């Protein structure tokens, strides 16, 4: 008798121990996955956050040298100001930071501390403040990428001079400007507003954000109604036979097709056969819709299937037509699930790169697109483009773009969760 009890206790201990081990494995697996996510986020955040502020250098611009009376600016139109020749005037304003420099070579070095568009920046300042210009105005000019990176500490100053992009004399100028308190940071609004640029300090994600939004909009407009209607038909109306089985299998297969194949399809048919404009969010949206449709259809069908059949029967039994039963009772209940599927599909589309490369959305686009028919980049393609560039400034901008992309994805997934929570039918 006691033998038997002992045997039972032993076997129980064995089972309990194996459960303990199993739990440890599970926790280990979860921690491993979490650790990688954490490393990814830390890595991206630590190299990307510095793109959200930029270095500016304070310059006193003597507008009196440009014109006899600064009040005259207020009478000039924007076009008049555009026609003013300001290049040498702007350069002279910068030389005034170091009046002692004589040599042409050194002057050139000084100018190179600033972004290439310094003249344009002074002109813009003049345009927006033309009614109120004093004899001398203090303007914050964008520093060049090299200065920006040195100022942020991302650039190794202790390399040999010939291995550095920034020269010794420029570092001397820079340190002197820092000592005089003329170098400062400001929030990098242009980064969020502007399109791409060959100059890292001037490049922005504005163009790709707008491009991505247009693309997603096209995807939403195309794939949401088509997906929902297809799902309703397949789930509620289509006869169950070989044809619909075949369609069902192929929709599932379509969801598994590598995205680059859709890109080839877009290139071959949408661009070459139909001749729609290359590199545009319209074409990108059409191609991504093809990819998103199966996701939406599958999610919508699943949520339609989850509506209890008794609801359909209840409606049919009072004499509703099949369409009334579906549209009045089944679809409203399934809608949160369908919306969730749609948002997840859109989030997938937002992060998709490969098909966009093939339809030419990988182009270098300086302007922020105004309509879905303008050539444009998109966020993931921008990441791809900048990650290939050598300049230091693009490194932080690549990470910052990934941060924005992740931010949008998290927002969309959050929206999906909230919609599901809020509109879910309580039984």
């Amino acid at each position, binding site marked *: 008798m006691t033998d038997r009890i002992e045997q039972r206790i032993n076997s129980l201990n064995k089972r309990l121990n194996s459960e303990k081990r199993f739990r440890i494995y599970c926790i280990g697996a979860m921690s491993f996955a979490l650790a990688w996510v954490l490393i990814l986020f830390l890595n991206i955040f630590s190299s990307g956050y510095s793109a959200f502020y930029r270095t500016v250098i304070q310059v006193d611009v003597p507008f009196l040298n440009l014109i006899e009376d600064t009040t005259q600016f207020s009478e000039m139109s924007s076009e008049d100001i555009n026609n003013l020749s300001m290049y040498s005037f702007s350069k002279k304003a910068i030389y005034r930071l170091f009046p002692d420099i004589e040599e042409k070579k050194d002057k050139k070095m000084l100018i190179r501390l600033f972004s290439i568009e310094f003249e344009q920046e002074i002109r813009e300042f003049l345009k927006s403040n033309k009614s109120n210009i004093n004899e001398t105005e203090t303007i914050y000019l964008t520093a060049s990428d090299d200065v920006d990176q040195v100022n942020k500490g991302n650039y190794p100053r202790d390399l040999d001079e010939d291995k550095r992009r920034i020269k010794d004399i420029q570092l001397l100028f820079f340190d002197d400007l820092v000592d005089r308190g003329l170098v400062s940071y400001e929030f990098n609004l242009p980064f969020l507003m502007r399109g791409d640029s060959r100059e890292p300090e001037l490049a922005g994600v504005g163009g790709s954000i707008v491009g991505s939004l247009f693309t997603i909009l096209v995807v939403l407009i195309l794939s949401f109604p088509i997906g929902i209607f297809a799902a309703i038909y397949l789930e509620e109306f289509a*006869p*169950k036979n070989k044809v619909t089985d075949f369609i069902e299998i192929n929709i599932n297969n379509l969801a598994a097709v590598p995205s680059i194949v859709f890109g080839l399809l877009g290139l071959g048919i949408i661009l070459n056969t139909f001749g729609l404009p290359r590199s545009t969010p319209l074409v990108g949206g059409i191609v991504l819709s093809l990819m998103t449709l199966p996701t939406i259809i599958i999610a919508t069908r699943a949520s339609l299937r989850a509506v*209890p059949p*008794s*609801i*359909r*029967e*209840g*409606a*049919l*039994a*009072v*004499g*509703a*037509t099949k369409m*009334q039963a579906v549209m*009045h*009772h089944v679809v409203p*209940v399934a809608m949160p699930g369908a919306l969730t599927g749609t948002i997840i599909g859109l989030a997938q589309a937002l992060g998709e790169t490969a098909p966009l490369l093939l339809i030419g959305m990988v182009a270098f686009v300086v302007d922020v697109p105004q309509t879905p028919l303008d050539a444009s980049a998109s966020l993931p393609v921008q990441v791809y483009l900048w990650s290939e560039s050598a300049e230091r400034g693009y490194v932080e901008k690549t990470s910052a773009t990934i941060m924005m992309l992740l931010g949008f994805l998290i927002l969309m997934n959050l929206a999906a969760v909230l919609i599901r929570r809020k509109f879910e*039918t*309580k*039984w």
Partner: protein
Amino acid sequence: MVKENMKSIKIKAHNLNVHYGEKQALFDVSMYMEEKQVTALIGPSGCGKSTFIRCLNRMNDVIDICKVQGKIEIDGNDIYAPDMQVEQLRERVGMVFQKPNPFPKSIFENVAYGPRIHGIAEHKSDLEEIVVNSLKKAALFDEVKDRLNDAGTGLSGGQQQRLCIARAISVNPDIILMDEPCSALDPIATARIEELMGELKTEYTIIIVTHSMQQAARVSSRTGFFHLGKLVEVDKTETIFSNPSDQRTQDYITGRFG
């Protein structure tokens, strides 16, 4: 005896055969049901009584593989005739299901839905009147009159089932089919529904499928006993329960199988 024969026949099924794909669920069922009476259908699980009742308002049409052969006449009209509109049929033949299935909408909307889609109520006040009357007939109005805009799914099981009855009578049918309406309810809720059936039969022809022989005995005037897809016997309820003519009926009601 003469009085019994005076009752007019509302529904007549003639040689009804139903197949689900390869499997035959009903074999040559012929029976009639009297107007403004309760007819009970009893039998063990899987005997075809639910299949039969679902033929009466063509709810089986929803099932792709279901084939119905034979004839069902309501007031002399063949309901499987090609020119019969199934929506119109279901307006005349309401149904209450085994599990209460109110729509996930307000109590008011649950009852108002039928009249609304059939265009029965012209004005909002008409619709309100129909809803109130239906709820009153279903003996639910007093319990819910202060919360008509609350969700129908928030009611108790018995109340939900009475809401479904109110929904069924809202379109003013002639016939109400009840497919085991009390199987998901407790005895008190069951008693209320049975009491309600007694009231409703003055206006409606009621066909009820039930597993409870006591229930059949309490509420019905005629009872049919199904077994393995065949209608074994149909007769006055007293006769079925006191003096059945078939041995299988005898065995079932005495609890020897089922």
